[in-house]
């Protein structure tokens, strides 16, 4: 275990129960996920996957909002699940802050938005004197391209989505965190506003040395912003490594599938081959063997009954039998 890990996730699993009619099924929203984010070397760690792939559950566990069913989740070498309420508040929230998907839902529509900024500053005693708060807040807001004057006294719905999301990021920055967990921060934003937020993360990483876990289903922005990337499928991390490698030359059939599916504005690359989709939502979750086996173009017999191992291949980890050196198929 690297001693200087900022976040160390090891075999993390979250189990939910689905009740359907008179029966109930167990499924793993996150299944044996392992991720390490180094401290000292801030990065944007992108997590991509289709909806229902467990991204959000993973984020919630990292934020301490959900307790893991199994596995370890250490932040700065401390088990997050073991932190007391007081420690959560006095230490963990200082260190780790969230940015949510919908900036309008993230603030009470009945409250002025700057209230959350002041609350954060006061509660974490970020300034010695309360009179200092506006100055400090303004300073942080300027990092996201806003001024306090612009937002003071406004209600969330008086701001644009981009502005509100930037306020949300500023709020997260107020505690001077080391890690920001951003769950689909741009998916509710318009195309013209989207890049301003993504650019912000890049800037923060550089200027403020904050690591960001950037969760998205949008591969293009993940590629644009992410230093490393983890591709999730039905709770599994199927491929993880440096972004340019993973998306430049995907190994896992699913990642390949993803990559070719990005609509290109060069329409001559039209898609000709048909792709399979899951029919029933829960089918893939409860599948034994590889969860992608049902629609994998390179499926092998072994995939149907066995869970593929995570193997290191070309500088990243891949969860696929194709790259399992113990198998003859991999060598072909």
């Amino acid at each position, binding site marked *: 275990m690297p001693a200087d890990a900022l976040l160390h996730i090891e075999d993390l699993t979250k189990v939910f129960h689905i009740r359907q009619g008179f029966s109930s099924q167990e499924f793993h929203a996150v299944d044996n996920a392992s991720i390490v984010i180094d401290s000292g070397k801030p990065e944007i760690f992108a997590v991509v996957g289709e909806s229902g792939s467990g991204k959000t559950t993973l984020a919630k566990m990292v934020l301490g909002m959900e307790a893991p069913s199994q596995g370890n989740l250490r932040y700065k070498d401390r088990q997050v699940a073991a932190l007391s309420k007081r420690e959560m508040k006095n230490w963990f929230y200082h260190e780790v802050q969230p940015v949510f998907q919908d900036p309008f839902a993230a603030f009470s529509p009945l409250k002025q938005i700057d209230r*959350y900024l002041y609350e954060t500053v006061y509660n974490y005693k970020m300034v010695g004197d309360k009179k200092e708060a506006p100055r400090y807040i303004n300073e942080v807001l300027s990092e996201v391209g806003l001024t306090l004057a612009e937002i003071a006294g406004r209600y969330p719905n008086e701001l644009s989505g981009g502005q509100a999301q930037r306020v949300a990021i500023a709020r997260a920055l107020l505690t001077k965190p080391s890690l920001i967990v951003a769950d689909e921060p741009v998916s509710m934003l318009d195309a013209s506003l989207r890049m301003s937020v993504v650019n912000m993360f890049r800037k923060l990483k550089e200027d403020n040395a904050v690591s960001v876990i950037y969760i998205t289903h949008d591969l293009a922005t993940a590629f644009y912003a992410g230093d490393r990337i983890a591709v999730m499928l039905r709770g599994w991390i199927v491929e993880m490594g440096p972004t340019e490698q993973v998306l430049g030359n995907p190994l896992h059939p699913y990642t390949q599938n993803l990559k070719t599916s990005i609509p290109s504005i060069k329409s001559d690359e039209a898609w000709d081959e048909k792709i399979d989709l899951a029919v029933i939502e829960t089918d893939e979750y409860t599948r034994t063997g590889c969860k992608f086996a049902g629609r994998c173009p390179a499926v092998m017999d072994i995939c149907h009954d066995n869970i593929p191992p995570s193997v290191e291949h070309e500088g990243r980890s891949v969860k696929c039998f194709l790259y399992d050196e113990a198998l003859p198929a991999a060598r072909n």
Partner: protein
Amino acid sequence: MLTTIRDLLRYSLSFRFGSVILLFVAIMVVVSFFAPYPPEKRRVVPRKMRGEPPSAEYILGTTTLGQDVFWMLLTAVRHTLLIASIAVCIGRGIGVMLGMISGYLGGGADRVIQSVVESVIVIPRLPLLILIAVILKGGLTFVWLGILIGMLDWAYPSKRYRAQVLSLREREFTHTAIFSGMGTAKIVIQEHLPFIIPFLLADVVSGFLFSIGMEVTLSWLGLNDLNSLSLGTMIYWADEWNSIFAGKPWVMIAPVVAVIVVVVGFYLVSIGISEYLDPRKRLLRLQTHQSDTALELQAQGTSAGTAIASAGTAKDE
């Protein structure tokens, strides 16, 4: 608050109607304090005028025992509202407290509170009320009646508040508040209470309807302090003296109409308020910029529109 009321008065037909009624009721209550004689008192009307239909002098008529129905009615309305107010304060007070405590504590405390709530819910309220009224009979003053009705009318509301709290707890802004370092008390009072208040308002009105109904019902069964005036006891006595059949229907009609008018007044106001609090309507009022999207979506009635619009209310029931 004032602008809200002004807007409601100007644009909500039911609120306007309801307010006029309630204003009228309020005037009755105020005027009732200026009765020229104790309104319960009999033999205050000159003998020749007793049991006479409404006239210029006695605008709602008189009873055979020489009471002036007009002054009786005013006082009765006041007393009935007093009973209902006490009941509502107690019922909603317990309901809000238990519901919120239960929702926030969760776990074992929640389970214990919920089994108590469930147990209270399964006990039929009217028979219980009658039973206790019979037991307390001699000492059943209006205040006690109010307390009694209130004590039986908190279980359902408390469940609703609990559900509210549970859903509010899952809302994203709650997490924002937590990550902003706010304590539980602060979140409850400053972040969540504003969302509960609209429900409380609607609930207060339904509490009034229940309490007035119960007062009338119990009185009609003779289980109230029959010598004091309330709408229920007026109905009881009108019934006891067979006013309808003895050719003196005004004695019965006055309280019956008053009951209906008062409850309908409350109900209309509550319709107006809940319409005002309807997330979709609220959106149209609140938005200034940007949310044209929401408007557009809302006009189409899509769920995205509703979702954005409902920022501010949690659905329940």
